[in-house]
């Protein structure tokens, strides 16, 4: 019998305001906290700080590392409605800010999110609806990430949201414009289903501005309306023959594909544009069987805005690029397209780095093709605002107050790309969350005031510390070879295997979740200074452990004689609580507690679903560095023996793990011996890296040695 960690109530952060950056933590503060994890709410790791929805990355990665997949998704979805979609397509600013880059490579956060979100699916994670959902009805126009996020947040706050979607399927741009090879529809549906389960009504095939209008919604009893229609139409250029049926606005082209209506194309496709949407269009054209697909853009290779990986994969799939040319005319010949006439581009950006292309009209060239897709940007479609009374600004945009998310009419709100610069899914989700808060404030209090200040961000790791952190290679995601990819619409990159996901999650350094000193208990004894393998603690008046530097190994916590150091990411007394719980579950008879360093353990091991040894309560730890002598002796008061199974030398996530663990076991045995007990009741084996069979065998051997004199 073995158990995972107890309920840590990661998400409930009802705690006193304790600003760790500017005041000292005392034991009284800690006693007032339900969970020290609350301390981390006052200081964000860079991954969380950079995330537009500020998802608690460190916590959900940690939960993956412990095989607690459903809880992990709950933590993600606490902030991010579109966990599955973002697992596929997020631009992952978290990874760009990951401090692991100072050591080796960033943790593959997006891939881990994909792994866990899709593993759990829409049914496996918690749907927590408020007891009553009888607050006002709110209409949301558009079922994309912004609108659905807003609807979810309103439902969570007890409102009755109804989402109106003009297409027959909900999901917005992820549904209509992201190709299936990047985002399979069942993956998107997991998010939509989960959101709907919160009491969100979705009306599809309902285009506002036709049967229903904004004024009619307000008349029909909706207390507020949120506009979340995004950028629904493709920008086009007023060029000759631009309306030829084989000239596609990119969203039309992608939407046809999305709804399984094969767009008619020829064999020689030219995509105009150098962004990610252009890459989607070009790669889709390859899959439609075009003989030649080329992308022509104003920018050169370095300037083009598409992600590097997207460009590389397009190249692998046979897409070629023509840089520094701009379209002039679609040249037709007897009703068919013959070419796209282009002119040279001298420069794209001006001295102020603004988009301001300069052309060379003497350099005219016809690029042969029979189909053209224009992917030069998207624009909002304001058709639905006619006769609504909504004002537009001087540049033809929706009049909008970003401080309150309101349009010119106080009960009509807006979010997403209709009012923000073009961005990614997660940014739209953030905008949706914000507008829901605005609507709530407006309806409850009549005034809208945001405090957008973020907790402080943990700083960088100095090189001297980074150099002491053990390096572990990032798990590579398996991408199908290009010839297999272009043969159909199945996904191009494969999910992490469970083993790879656990390995990757355990690369997370848990920034800011490490040690914290309770100043009133610290005796300034220097023990933490002397045992820390990273050289982080400093004793000034009392010990000071910089949470920005601490690597969370827990050695100082276990060694501190004053019990003055706590972990910011674990409940105080975590090991002893888990031990008690695990032993209680054992049947009558001889009881053994096994503490196992879980760096190489499987998810099933962590959550107690793998084979154990009879009469053994297994307690998995991130590392045995976190196991104190007092924990071992405490376990002996509950059981007949203790086996500590650490990782072998150099095989754990933390330096000095094997040595420190061995010294502690020796100390526990000396104490037992000096007190006249059987010292063999505590055994050690350094076999935790050998997997379940090795661990079980080590435990059996250790048990057999317990009875020996």
């Amino acid at each position, binding site marked *: 019998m073995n158990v995972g960690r107890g309920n840590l109530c990661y998400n409930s952060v009802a705690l006193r305001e304790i600003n760790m950056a500017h005041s000292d933590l005392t034991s009284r503060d800690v006693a007032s906290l339900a969970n020290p994890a609350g301390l981390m709410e006052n200081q964000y790791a860079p991954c969380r700080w950079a995330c537009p929805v500020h998802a608690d990355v460190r916590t959900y990665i940690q939960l993956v590392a412990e095989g607690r997949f459903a809880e992990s998704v709950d933590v993600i979805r606490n902030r991010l409605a579109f966990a599955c979609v973002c697992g596929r397509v997020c631009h992952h600013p978290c990874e760009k800010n990951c401090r692991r880059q100072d050591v080796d490579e960033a943790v593959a956060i997006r891939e881990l999110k994909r792994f866990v979100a899709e593993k759990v699916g829409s049914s496996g994670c918690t749907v927590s609806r408020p007891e009553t959902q009888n607050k006002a009805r709110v209409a949301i126009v558009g079922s994309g990430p912004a609108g659905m996020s807003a609807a979810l947040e309103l439902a969570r706050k007890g409102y009755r949201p109804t989402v109106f979607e003009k297409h027959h399927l909900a999901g917005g741009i992820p549904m209509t414009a992201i190709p299936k090879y990047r985002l399979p529809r069942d993956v998107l549906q997991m998010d939509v289903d989960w959101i709907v389960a919160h009491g969100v009504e979705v009306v599809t095939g309902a285009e506002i501005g036709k049967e229903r209008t904004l004024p009619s919604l307000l008349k029909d009893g909706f207390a507020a309306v949120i506009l979340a229609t995004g950028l629904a139409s493709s920008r086009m250029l007023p060029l000759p023959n631009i309306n030829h049926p084989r000239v596609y606005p990119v969203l039309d082209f992608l939407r046809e594909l999305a709804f399984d209506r094969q767009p008619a194309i020829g064999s020689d496709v030219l995509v105009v544009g150098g962004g990610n949407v252009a890459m989607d269009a070009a790669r889709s054209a390859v899959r439609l069987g075009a003989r030649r697909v080329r992308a022509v853009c104003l920018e050169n290779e370095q300037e083009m805005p598409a992600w590097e990986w997207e460009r590389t994969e397009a190249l692998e799939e046979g897409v070629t690029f023509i840089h520094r040319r701009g379209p002039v005319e679609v040249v037709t010949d007897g009703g068919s397209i013959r070419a796209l006439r282009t002119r040279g581009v001298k420069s794209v950006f001006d001295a102020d780095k603004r988009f301001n292309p300069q052309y060379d009209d003497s350099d005219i060239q016809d690029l042969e093709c029979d189909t053209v897709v224009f992917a030069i940007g998207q624009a909002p479609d304001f058709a639905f605002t006619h006769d609504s009374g909504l004002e537009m600004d001087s540049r033809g945009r929706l009049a909008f107050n970003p401080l309150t998310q309101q349009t010119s009419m106080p009960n009509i709100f807006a979010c997403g790309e209709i009012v923000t610069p073009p961005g990614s899914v997660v940014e739209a989700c953030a905008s949706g969350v914000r507008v829901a808060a605005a609507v709530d404030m407006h309806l409850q209090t009549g005034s809208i005031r945001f405090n957008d200040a973020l907790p402080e961000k943990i700083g960088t790791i100095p090189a001297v510390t980074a150099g002491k952190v053990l390096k572990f290679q990032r798990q590579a995601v398996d991408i199908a070879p290009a010839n297999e990819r272009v043969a159909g619409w199945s996904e191009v990159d494969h999910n992490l295997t469970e083993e790879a996901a656990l390995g990757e999650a355990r690369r997370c350094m848990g920034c800011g979740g490490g040690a914290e000193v309770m100043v*009133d*208990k610290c*005796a*300034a*004894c*220097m*023990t933490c200074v*002397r*045992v820390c393998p990273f050289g982080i603690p400093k004793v000034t008046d009392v010990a000071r452990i910089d949470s920005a530097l601490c690597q969370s190994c827990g050695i100082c916590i276990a060694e*501190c*004689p*004053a*019990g*003055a150091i706590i972990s910011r990411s674990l409940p105080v007394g975590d090991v002893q609580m888990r031990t008690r719980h695990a032993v209680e579950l054992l049947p009558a008879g001889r009881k053994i507690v096994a503490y196992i360093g879980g760096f190489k353990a499987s998810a099933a091991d962590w959550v107690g679903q793998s084979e154990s040894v009879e009469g053994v309560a297994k307690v998995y730890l991130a590392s045995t560095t976190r196991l*104190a*002598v*007092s924990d071992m*002796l*405490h376990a*002996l*008061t509950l059981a007949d023996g203790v086996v500590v199974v650490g990782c072998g030398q150099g095989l754990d996530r933390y330096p000095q793990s094997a040595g420190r663990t061995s010294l502690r076991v020796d100390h526990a045995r000396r*104490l*037992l011996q*000096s*007190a*006249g*007990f059987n010292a063999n009741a505590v055994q050690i084996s350094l076999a935790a890296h050998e997997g379940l069979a090795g661990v079980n065998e080590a435990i059996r051997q250790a048990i057999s040695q317990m009875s020996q004199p």
Partner: protein
Amino acid sequence: MIVAELKPFDEIMAMLAGSRKVLVLGCGSCVTVCLSGGQKQAEELASLIRLRSQQTGMDITVDVDCITRQCDKEFFDNFKFDPRGYDAVVSLACGVGVGFMSREMPDLRILPGLNTTFYGANTAPGEWKEFCHGCGDCVLAWTGGICPIARCSKSLINGTCGGTNGGKCEVKPEMDCAWLLIYQRLRELGKLDEYRKIRPARDWRKDRGSGVRRLSRQELSQIDEEPRQ
């Protein structure tokens, strides 16, 4: 700093004979620093007592507490477990704490869990060494900072005895002869003239020869003046 170490467990259990409810009380100062009497060590001892209790059917209830210092009564306000509710308190303070607690709480059985051993300093991770004897009449100025009272088996003050043997002490062969160390140190300092001076017999009344020693800071004595109305 005062250094102490855990008493033999059987001795502690003998002291606890007949006690049903026991508080193990750590002290958050010197004995925490030398890893003998802090919160963690109190927890360890408590576990050992519980184990013995379980094995022998003694049915002892053990709680653990730790306060900043047991030698200042203001810290007694910080008990999380009231010591008055226990048959015995095993104090993991030095003898000062045990004695002071006993004086301040005369109704309680305050038992020493540690043997107080010396005034020392940390010389390597996990190692403490005696540096001072508390003799009341410091001589370190002319012994190169090496205390002959604490470190010479005979507390001599005018050089080695005849028992120095290859730099080691005749009383304890693994112990360095303090006076050889002093000689070497003074030679390094160019102060061997200090070594050549004959020191008169010490006044051992400043040690323990004339009873309990006191420190009296009159400028901090209690003021009984009534506040002006």
